[in-house]
């Protein structure tokens, strides 16, 4: 197992290197932060811009390859991912961004998985009954509705509640109230008031996919020959399904869950923008808008790492739940 993991890790490190390098070369040859500087008032002279960028290691006069070599040397020798055009250090900003994304998504993704799988099992056992139809229709609706619209609707709902109560119960944007005084309890209530709306929004939008998948995989197995064998042994239909069909139908779901978990740390653009939590997702888009080569590449590299971890976890999960699969 360890040998297998090591081998996979080597492969993925190589792939991450390729994507990141390609991403950097693409970014460095298309993004022109110097143009943005021209819009400043008072307008700096081109020499001033070049000088300022050279000090930040973003010398626009060097060709892309030279900048790539510099950038790569920085990472490999000092683990320095460079600076933004505004002078901020990528390394310093990165940790904060990841932590914000994680806080935004951690609770909601766990809820999404648990609720989605549980509802999938529940509806599969009650196929075509009213409860199944309602829940499954809802899941398909969530497939269709674009996530930002659903987030906005949840926000509107929260604002409505605030208005009808006449007091600010929920915060629809932001992570915490700046400059809040008070003890631990006040801090805790403030945190809940900030977390409730985004967590709820991401959860109700997300579980649909898992519900549909789990329901489908379980239904595929409900009439399988081995469930019939289990019933022929003397298990009731429900016992046979929960002991035999469920375990088999969970194999593909476990794989997709394993893939999802690292995504908690990668964040999501729409949710972060709409709820104004400035995590990794919004950073990656913003950095492109701000012509920030180093930040854009860093988020890309981070995304690749998350993907690789997800793929390894998915393999691991499959071997864990399916004895037919062996890793060699």
């Amino acid at each position, binding site marked *: 197992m360890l040998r297998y993991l090591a081998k996979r890790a080597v492969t993925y490190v190589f792939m991450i290197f390729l994507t990141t390098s390609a991403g950097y070369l693409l970014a460095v040859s298309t993004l022109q932060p110097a143009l943005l500087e021209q819009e400043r008032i008072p307008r700096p002279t081109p020499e001033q811009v070049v000088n300022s960028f050279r000090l930040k290691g973003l010398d626009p006069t060097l060709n892309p390859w030279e900048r790539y070599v510099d950038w790569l040397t920085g990472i490999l020798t000092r683990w320095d991912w460079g600076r933004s055009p505004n002078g901020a250090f990528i390394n310093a900003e990165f940790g904060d961004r990841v932590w914000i994304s994680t806080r935004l998504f951690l609770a909601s993704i766990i809820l999404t998985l648990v609720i989605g799988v549980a509802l999938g099992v529940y509806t599969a056992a009650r196929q075509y009954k009213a409860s199944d139809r309602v829940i499954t229709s809802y899941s398909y609706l969530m497939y269709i509705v674009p996530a930002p619209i659903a987030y906005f609707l949840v926000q509107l709902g929260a604002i409505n509640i605030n208005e009808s109560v006449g007091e600010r119960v929920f915060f629809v944007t932001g992570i915490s109230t700046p400059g809040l005084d008070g003890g631990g309890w006040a801090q805790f209530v403030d945190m809940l008031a900030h977390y409730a709306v985004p967590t709820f929004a991401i959860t109700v939008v997300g579980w649909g996919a898992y519900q549909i998948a789990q329901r489908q995989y379980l239904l595929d197995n409900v009439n399988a020959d081995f469930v019939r*064998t*289990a*019933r022929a042994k003397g298990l*009731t239909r429900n016992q046979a399904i929960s002991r035999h069909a469920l375990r088999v139908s969970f194999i593909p779901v476990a794989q997709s869950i394993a893939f999802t978990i690292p995504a908690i740390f990668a964040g999501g653009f729409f949710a972060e923008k709409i709820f104004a939590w400035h995590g990794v997702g919004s950073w990656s888009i913003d950095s492109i808008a701000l012509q920030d080569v180093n930040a854009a590449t860093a988020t890309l590299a981070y995304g690749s790492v998350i993907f690789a971890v997800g793929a390894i976890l998915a393999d691991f999960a499959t071997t864990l739940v399916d004895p037919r699969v062996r890793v*060699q």
Partner: protein
Amino acid sequence: MTSNTTAPDTAQSTAERLRVAGLHAPTDAVLSVRDLNVRFNTENGVVHAVRGIDFDVLPGKTLGIVGESGSGKSVTSMAIMGLLPPTAEISGSVRLKGKELLGLSDKAMCRHRGNDLAMVFQDPLSSLTPVYTVGTQIVEALTVHNPTMSKQAKEARAVELLGLVGIPSPKDRLKAFPHEFSGGMRQRVMIAIAIANNPRVLIADEPTTALDVTIQAQVLEVLHAAQEETGAAVVMITHDLGVVAGMADDIMVMYAGRPVETGSVDDIYYSSRMPYTMGLLGAVPRVDIAEKTSLVPIEGIPPNLAHPPTGCSFAPRCPLASEACLDGEPDLREVASGTAHSAACIKTEALADVDAHAIFAAPAVPVSRFDRLPRHERKTVLELRDVRKHFPLMKGALLKRRIGTVKAVDGLSFDIREGECFSIVGESGCGKTTTLLEIMEFHKDQDGEVVIGGLSNKHAADAKAKGAMRRELQMVFQDPTGALDPRFTVYEVLAEPMENLGMPKPAIRKRIMELMELVGLQADHVNRFPNQFSGGQRQRIGIARALAVNPRLVVLDEPVSALDVSVQAGVINLLDKLRAELGLSYLMVAHDLSVVRHISNRVAVMYLGKIVEIGDVDAVFDNPRHPYTRALLSAIPVPDPELERTRERIILQGDLPSPLEAPAGCNFATRCPVFAALPPAKQEKCLTLEPALELAAVDQQFACFYPDGELDADMVVVHEDH
């Protein structure tokens, strides 16, 4: 025994149930079924799948239920087990030791299922849960009915059960997962699960259909042992008249959801009185007799049970049908008073001592123009010289190293002459299909030479030569449904090969009409899609497609194994006729040795990539010299109860060995019944030297050092009393 099938509604009133219950004979039957009816609500209306079945099974006895697909035999077994979906409407009565089972809730039924009523299913590959160990699954069957049993006791019982069904080192195998077992081994596990709680009734639904003949013989032996061990009554459901001939005491023949003939096994096989039964028996080729008669084909297809038949359900296919047959369905009636033999036919009396061939229009045996010529004067259409296909067995992902070789085909040489049918037989995994693929591959880098109609793969294997080769050689596939594109009309299917050859349109059209007639299909059906034809008709389309370009050699890959017995006979007769009329040669691969014997002139027996015996089909089948051929032939059940009861059977141990374990010498040594009985000095020779093919008769060669050696007593089974 009469049954009333006109009951329109299934909601049974108490009075109705009492009436039905009154029909129960006061016998000591452990399972008795009366007037069982099953209806399914489908999109096409109500399908009345089982229409009034009565039977009793006595303890320790075996009832065989025989029928073709769609006859309702499996639905009957599932209805008894209470495993049909809730949408099925079931009426009548099923009594287990006098207790009514129909109408019990799923929960109440669970006290019987797996306890005193157990079942073995058809497909062992999918019937075990893949994610639990075999031990867990056996223990589960024990736990359900014996909650107080200790863990050690359950484990000990599971080991005992696995040993009983003949799984070597059962204690270690308990922790194995189903995918680590072969098909035959999994079916043994299924039997172990079924007999775990000493059931009074064991229902086996096609338990050996998915298995090789040698494995089938092993599993049937295990079932036999299990029945003796538990004293259970067995209900054996099958389409194979051979399988039940040796096992059953009584037989019930089903057609269109009803029993059409019931009686003791001798009654059914030796004096059947219902045309359908007679047709079925006549449609089965025999492996033990060199027949020179055609098989009896039963024309037509079974009725659609969404529309209840108004007359005898078999009348549309029965050559004896008259006006009277269409007037109401005949009930089962005793053939002679006081016997248990009954048949549902109004002409029963007239059918005593009548031969099936006299009723059904079996075509005359076709004679080919080549049959008169001695073999050596005919031209060779296909020749293989020392063809090999080895697959390296690799281990490791990045740095692969070779840990062995799978010799799928290992030095095969044979030839096929004009107008003859050459068959390759053997267990799955012996290399039959690889041989066909090697012939179709026709590439100059192949190991060995393939000569097709004078074209050699060594000398001319460019695209042009391949095209010419395809004109000489065409293929008919096993699964007629999968082999035809569902979006192509029959016309398009048949036209494609000819368009490839660049034939002009009018010629193609004319040829297609010829082909349709040739294979016995209506010419005006060319614009239909494959799904509008029955299985047998689809296989005829497949044959027509192969014949379109006028090949000289047709490769038949299991051409009839997907077809029902009665339909199979028609296709076999057609193949026979085409061979004679068109002077075709066939290369056939089949696992059914009865079919092989019927249709072939010469046969090769393969084992682990090598030919172990080859020659004239009658010589090889009547006087097999190689121990493997002997075992293979003895494993095939014959539809003759008398013979089945007394003949000696060679039961091979285990499965085909893995290529890594094959010995250096004779690769059959690990399972050979002769080898096992040899003194160690002689065994040495088998293990170190590879036997070459040697001549036994004019046209018979075999590869064995001790063909006349004694058989190991452990591997020979004779059932003396029944």
